[in-house]
Each structure stands twice: as structure tokens, then as C-alpha cells.
């Protein structure tokens, strides 16, 4: 078995685990170093979710996507840093310290797949896997100046992805070029019956950079309150360029944006509060203290094992599901979610894709965002795609204050090919 040597200068703290010798074989990804976010299970390689509560855990099995990467000969060279369990927008919430943004090391790389983004942006690897629950691929892609795709919900198997919010998240590709995104999608979309929420819809596509006659919807809400005007200007310029390439721009409305973020946070914290209940120190992770009674031991385990943001979200989710509040929070969030879907259905009757900024601002300074709510608010433009399950890509579209800005393109269900085409069109147009 051939192997790839990997000895990176990880000055951005992109990796939690690296493998100095990574196996590779024949296939479409033969010899290509690929980084995998550390919430994706890798047989024999520690998988931590950047949490103390999984210290020492070595999965006895590979996630489906890891099996697929290996089958195509990819060299899995390391596991990347992230916000603990994917809960964050900066990769600062990691038990292994923050990842720095290669575009400006005083800035965050975005999150939660910040390690994967930094590893790709710095050139340590050619491509990486991230996961996107509410923007966790697209946000760091935008902040670090690379391409990142959140596939349609149900297109890529989640088997082996350590769940944060099952109904929202997807594994997706991150790379420096749309072409590599497309290549990874071909590998990742092989069907897996072990994830009951997937359907078989293999991606077999060569990006087509022609946008002539394409209708691009631009929702007013994507340029509204909270969006930095300088970022908005850069993104408008990018949209205009697509227009010059032959696309038709249609401004539109997405009224459900007003409660999308609340619906998102209620849903993801509710699911997380249940998903994260299994870390009791009995089967894996730091050993529970068996001299203490069960509940006390369990509380200690969670207090010591989880960071502040994870505990906050577990408590929020517990509250949202608790008797007397389920109707006010969880049930309402599901109704809101349906309205987001309805908005997309309505818009896609007249447009092919929707475009806007990926993030309302450029990358924050390290330590800049301390208040949880203001941090949550920065996800406003990415969560609608997760709530509806539609594909969305972030492609670099220039800079503001010298920092990367991402153009987000959102497509229809299982039309990941279309958002990749539009991103390819922008990428090629920009390089002219």
C-alpha cells in the first residue's frame, strides 16, 4: 500500500490530529491529501468533535464518506479543528484552542468547520470535508476565501457523522476550486442505505460555467439590516458580473427570514440536547466515576466534559422540549421551518437559483464576539438553506477591508449541480 507523507507547518492550528504517513491507493482521489473534520468518524483515528468529553475515543468504524474517500484512493492526512460539536461560528469553541484565519491570523476562520477551511486555504491540503448545520461549511469558506458546498439534505450519508442537529446537517466538500468541489461531490454522493434520510441521487456532472438565460433571485432580506454595506457592495458587484455573463437578476422577498434564525436555534438546540445525552463515560470517553451515584457522576461528566457554549445549547434545547414549552418553541419552530420551505418553493417557481452574501460581515477578530446572541445572529444568511434542506455554495467573490467575502448561491432540492455551475461561472468570470 502506497502512502503519503504529511508534515505540515500547522501554524493556524487547523488540525487536531495529523497522520505523518497516510495510506493512499488507486482511484479518482489517488495521492490527494484530504483533511476530515473531527466530527466525522474514522476507524482507528481519534475523533473528538473538539470536545474533552470524547478524549481518547477511537471509533471502531469509518463514516460512510470516509469509506468512500478511501475507496477512491484519497490520503486522509488529519482531523481538523472545529467548534465543539459544531456549535459555533468561529472555531474558537474548541477544547484544542482556536484556529486562525490564514487570510489574517488575527481573525477567526469562521466556523464550525474552521480547521478544514484553514487547512485548505493555507494549502496544507487540496481538499477537505466539512459539515454544515447552519452554515458551518459556507461561513468558514467565505471567511477564509475558499469554496464550500452544503449539499441537499439527504444527498450525502450522515452515517458516522457525530450528530449535532440531525435534521439540519450535511457533510460537504471544501476546496480552493469549484472543480475540486465537483470532484469530491462525485465521490461523496454514492448512496448509503444506513442513513434513512438519504435517497440515491449520485452526482455525475462536469461544471458548466454558462449562465446565459439563468434567472437569479436576489432576496431583499439578504441585503437588509445587519449586513455590512461594504460586504453587500462586494456581493452586488459579483451578482452584477453574473448578469453581465448573461444571467437575469430578479429581486424578490423572503418573508420567513424574520423568524428563520429563531426556528433554526430552537431546532438545533433541541436535537443537540438529545444527541449529546449519550456521553456518559460508560462506553467511551473519559471514564465515569463509578464510586459516585449515577446522576452525580453524569452531571460531573457533562460539566467537566462540555464547554460553555455546548452546555448553554443543551440547556436551551432541554428547555425548548420541556413540558409546557414544547408548543411555544419546538412546535412553532417546525411551523416556521415549513414556511421557510414554502418561501423557497414559491421563489423557485420563478428563479433557478437564489444569490446573496454568505455572511453579513467579514471574519471577526479573535475574541471579538463574546455575546452568544450576537454570535447567533451572524448565521442569519446561511440557516435558511439548512431549514429547507436545499443546496447552497459559498464561492469567493472579492474582498472587503482586505478580507475575503463569499457569494452564496442557493439552489433547488437535489439540484446541487446548478449551484456548482453558477459558482463555476462566477469563478471563471472573475479570473478573466
Amino acid at each position, binding site marked *: 500500500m502506497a502512502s503519503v507523507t504529511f508534515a505540515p507547518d500547522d501554524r493556524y492550528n487547523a488540525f487536531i490530529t495529523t497522520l505523518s504517513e497516510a495510506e493512499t491507493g488507486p482511484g479518482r482521489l489517488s495521492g490527494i491529501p484530504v483533511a476530515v473534520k473531527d466530527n466525522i468518524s474514522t476507524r482507528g483515528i481519534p475523533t473528538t468533535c473538539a470536545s474533552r468529553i470524547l478524549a481518547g475515543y477511537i471509533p471502531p*468504524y469509518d463514516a460512510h464518506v470516509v469509506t468512500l474517500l478511501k475507496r477512491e484512493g484519497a490520503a486522509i492526512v488529519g482531523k481538523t479543528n472545529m467548534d465543539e460539536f459544531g456549535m459555533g461560528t468561529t472555531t474558537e469553541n474548541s477544547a484544542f484552542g482556536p484556529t486562525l484565519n490564514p487570510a489574517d491570523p488575527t481573525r477567526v476562520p469562521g466556523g464550525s468547520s474552521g480547521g478544514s477551511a484553514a487547512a485548505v486555504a493555507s494549502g496544507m491540503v487540496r481538499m477537505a470535508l466539512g459539515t454544515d448545520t447552519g452554515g458551518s461549511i459556507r461561513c468558514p469558506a467565505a471567511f477564509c476565501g475558499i469554496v464550500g458546498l452544503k449539499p441537499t439534505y439527504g444527498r450525502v450519508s450522515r452515517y458516522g457523522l457525530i450528530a449535532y442537529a440531525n435534521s439540519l446537517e450535511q457533510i460537504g466538500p471544501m476546496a480552493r476550486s469549484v472543480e475540486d468541489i465537483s470532484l469530491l461531490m462525485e465521490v461523496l454522493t454514492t448512496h448509503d442505505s444506513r*442513513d434513512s434520510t438519504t435517497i440515491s441521487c449520485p452526482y455525475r456532472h462536469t461544471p458548466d460555467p454558462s449562465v446565459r438565460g439563468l434567472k437569479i433571485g436576489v432576496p431583499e432580506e439578504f441585503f437588509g439590516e445587519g449586513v455590512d454595506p461594504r460586504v453587500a457592495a462586494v456581493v452586488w458587484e459579483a451578482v452584477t458580473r453574473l448578469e453581465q455573463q448573461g444571467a437575469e437578476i430578479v429581486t424578490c422577498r423572503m418573508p420567513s427570514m424574520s423568524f428563520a434564525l429563531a426556528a433554526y436555534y430552537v431546532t438545533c438546540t433541541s436535537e443537540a440536547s*438529545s444527541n449529546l*445525552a*449519550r456521553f456518559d463515560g460508560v462506553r467511551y470517553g473519559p471514564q465515569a466515576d463509578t464510586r459516585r451515584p449515577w446522576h452525580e457522576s453524569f452531571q460531573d461528566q457533562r460539566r467537566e466534559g462540555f464547554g460553555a457554549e455546548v452546555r448553554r445549547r443543551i440547556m436551551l434545547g432541554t428547555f425548548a422540549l420541556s*413540558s409546557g414549552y414544547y408548543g411555544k418553541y419546538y412546535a412553532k419552530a417546525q411551523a416556521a421551518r415549513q414556511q421557510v420551505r414554502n418561501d423557497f418553493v414559491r421563489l423557485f417557481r420563478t428563479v433557478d437559483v437564489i444569490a446573496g452574501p454568505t455572511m453579513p460581515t467579514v471574519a471577526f477578530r479573535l475574541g471579538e464576539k463574546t455575546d452568544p446572541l450576537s454570535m447567533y445572529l451572524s448565521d442569519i444568511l446561511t440557516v435558511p438553506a439548512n431549514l429547507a434542506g436545499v443546496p447552497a455554495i459559498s464561492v469567493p467573490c472579492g474582498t472587503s477591508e482586505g478580507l475575503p467575502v463569499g457569494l452564496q448561491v442557493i439552489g433547488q432540492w437535489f439540484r446541487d449541480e446548478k449551484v456548482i455551475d453558477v459558482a463555476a461561472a462566477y469563478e471563471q468570470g472573475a479570473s478573466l
Partner: protein
Amino acid sequence: MSDNSATQPASPGMAIDDEVIIGLEIHCQLDTRTKLFCGCSTDYRDDPPNTHVCPICLGLPGSLPRVNLKAVEFSLRVGKALNCGIAHEAEFARKNYFYPDLNKGFQITQYDKPIAVKGYLDIEGEDGEKRVRITRVHMEEDPGRLVHKGGADRPKYTLVDYNRAGIPLIEIVTEPDLRSPKEARRFLNKLRATLEYLGVFDSEKEGSLRVDANISIQPKGWFEREGKGKADRGRVEVKNISSYKGVEKALTFEITRQKNLIRRGQKLETATRHFVETRGVTTSSRSKEMEQDYRYFPEPDLRPLRVCDWAAEIMLPELPDARRARFMEQYCCSPIHARTLTGELKLAEFYEKVADIDTALAATWLADTLLGELNYRDMSIVVVPPEQFRELLELLKEGSVTDKTGVEVLRVLLDQLKETGSCEGPRACVDRLGLRVITATPTLAGEDPVVKAAKEAIAEQPQAVADYLAGRKEALNFLVGQVMKKTRGCAKPGDVNTVLANLLEEG
């Protein structure tokens, strides 16, 4: 539900105008080959701990459940057999609580969208045929098994085995329609028979059925007036009953306990109690039984079940009531024999394997004799080879053994089965023990064993002879008994009668 006036109080000493209200929640393991959400084998009982587990049933991070088609089909069979409506859309939900037997910190079950609702099962109640309403039937996964270790000298801790985790369970909830522990037992027997007939349940497997019982004592007629949830006296939930016999015992104990409280004028609080099988008592749950909040929500990793059409296509096999009717018709079984013989699938099948010899003889020997002898030895019908029993029936039918020696042979064979798992042939057994029937020769010759025994008896019992000759014909029965004893039961009672009567006539 109108059992009024005639009902006896379920427990002596209870006020005549009180009645017992019982509702049951029954968990049954479905007899699939693999677990509910993974491909691990369900055949774990004799294997070491944690050898039937995988990332899914171990709840390893990242694993995802997959629904076993067979478990759904079995649940649909149960729903239909219990006359339930099948849900237009059923859905799995998470029941969140923290306990070491839960591999994921939640149990996947069904909450507001169970697979089947609103059915009934007819049973033989205290006052004849009775309809017990079924509230709902839902699917869920079994948790793991805990072993509690340690004691006074050592800190206590728990051992966990996840082999059982993920075994498909069906939970059947009844309305509080049962009025006595006996009715509860009959309901369970009928339910068990129904599940076995459906081919979805194996009652032979240890721990395959567990029962929680809700029980209260209310003024007569209260339930019909007020309905569920308005108890003016508290209601107790008895958990952890894991045997059929245990249900009747636990309920009887709990009724006595509640009755005593009521008699002393104490208030009965709504509470949860545990049944301690070994001691036959219920004990208060010590654990802080604080208001549990399970925070149910739809399982996001699974898709809904829309199975009405499928359910409609499922053909049910013959169920106990139908089989009972057929046994009465086809084999002319008495109603009591028919009920007994169809009360257990294995028994009914056993009967049909041997009934051709003589339907009445087989019914009597199976329902009355064999079952009693099996119960006495705590054995199950499944260990009895039908061919051997056939042979015994043949011996009886052809008159080669008497009823009395037939029982003796049966006992010998069952003891052999219990000890070694196999037994000799009934014919061989009869010959070995010299139990073949003795036929008396009509000549009254001295060498005939029956005649010899009769002569001995007459000589030894002058008083009985005198009584007989004085016209007290019942004295003959005593002499017959003496002769039977002397012939070790091998003589035919008819022959003995004739021989004795002739000898006595001859004087």
C-alpha cells in the same frame, strides 16, 4: 362495561360497594431475527455480555438507526389481531432520560403517532365473555440489561450488557377495563396465545414479556361515571412484573395493601411501586420519582411509517377464538377442552398432531392429564415428543394399558424427559415395568392372576364379603380396589368386577 350487582368483591374484606380497576401495559419482545434498528442477532440469551452489539445498538457517536421491516410487519399483525385501527402515519420519537441501560441517553419509541390504536380483545371475564379495550399499540427498542454489584463491604456499581439493547418491543396498553387479578391473568393468557398464533412472539424466552399494572380501588360505578384520570382515590402503578404468575400475585398483594389503607382511613397517594418477584410483594420506589419530563420529539434520523395499505394486505392466521370454535366443530371437543387446548399455540398444534387416534381420548389425556402433570413438574409442552404421546394414546386406545397404568407410564416418561431431555418409548416402558393389562380368563381358573388376586381379596376381607352378601352392593367397590392394588393397576376394572361378582355368587 357493565359488571354490576352479581360480582363478588375481588378480595375478601373489601367493601361490597368498592371495585378494583386494573389497566395493563404489556411489553413483548417481537420474535424477529435481528434487532429493531440494526442487524445484530436477537438470539443472545446464552451468550457472553456485549457480543451481540454494533455501533448502532451500542449507541456509538455517528451511528444511525434503520427500521427492521419484519418488526413493522409483526406490529401490524398485532394491531390487526387486536382489532385496532392502523395509523395513517406512524412516527418514531425520542424519549429522553438518563440511565445506564440506555445506550444513547434516549429510547426510540412511538409517542403521539403509535402504529395502532383503539382496539379490543375478548376474554373470559368474571361474568362471562368480556371485551377489554386496547388503547394503543406502539413499537420501541428494549434497553440494555443492568446487573447491580457491590454491597456493604464494597462500593456499589452497575454492570451493563447491551446484548438486549435494541431488541424490538411492542407495548400494548389497555383501558382500565379489568376488574380482578384473575381477569388480568386471563387477559394476559389470551394476549400471549394471540401473539403466539400470530408467530410474532416466543413466550418460552426468558424476559420476553414484562408487565406494568395500574391499579386502584374505587367506589362501585365510579369508573363508569367518571372515566379515566379522575380517581378520587390514588392509583398505583406496579412496575417490573416479568412473569404471568407474577401479575396475579402482584395485583392480589397490591389490592390487599390498598384495601387495608382504605380501611384504616388513610389516603392512598398516586405512586409507582416495584414488584419483588422473589418475595411476592410490591415496594415503594425509593428513587426520587420526581416529575419525569421525557421531552419527546420526533426521531429526526427516521422517516414516518405509512403502512395502512400494507396492513390491509396482511392476512392473519387462525386466532385462538377461531381455533376454539373449530376444535368444537371438527373434533367435537367440549367447550372447556376446546378453550384449554387452544389457549396455547403449542398445545393446540400438539393436539392436532395426535387427535386422529381418538379425538375425545386425546383431548382428555392432553387437557386433563398431561397438562396437570406438566404443571406439577414446571415443564412445557414443547419438551414432549408428540410421537411418544401418540404411542401412549395408542396403548390406551387398544386397551393395552389401563387409565391408571397409563398415568403411571406418563409420569415415568415425563420424569425421564425432565432429567435427561429424552425418554424411552411408552411401549418399551410398559413392558419394562410389566404394566401391560391383564385380561382375566372367563373360566375363573386358579392360575389366572386376576382370579388369583380376587380369591385372595375375598379371603382377606370377610367383612366386605359379608356386607356384599347382605345386599350392600357398594362393598364390591372396596373389593375391586383391593384387587386393583394386588394387580398393580394392570387389571381392567370391568374384568375385576365380573370376576369378583362371579366368585361371590359361587360363594
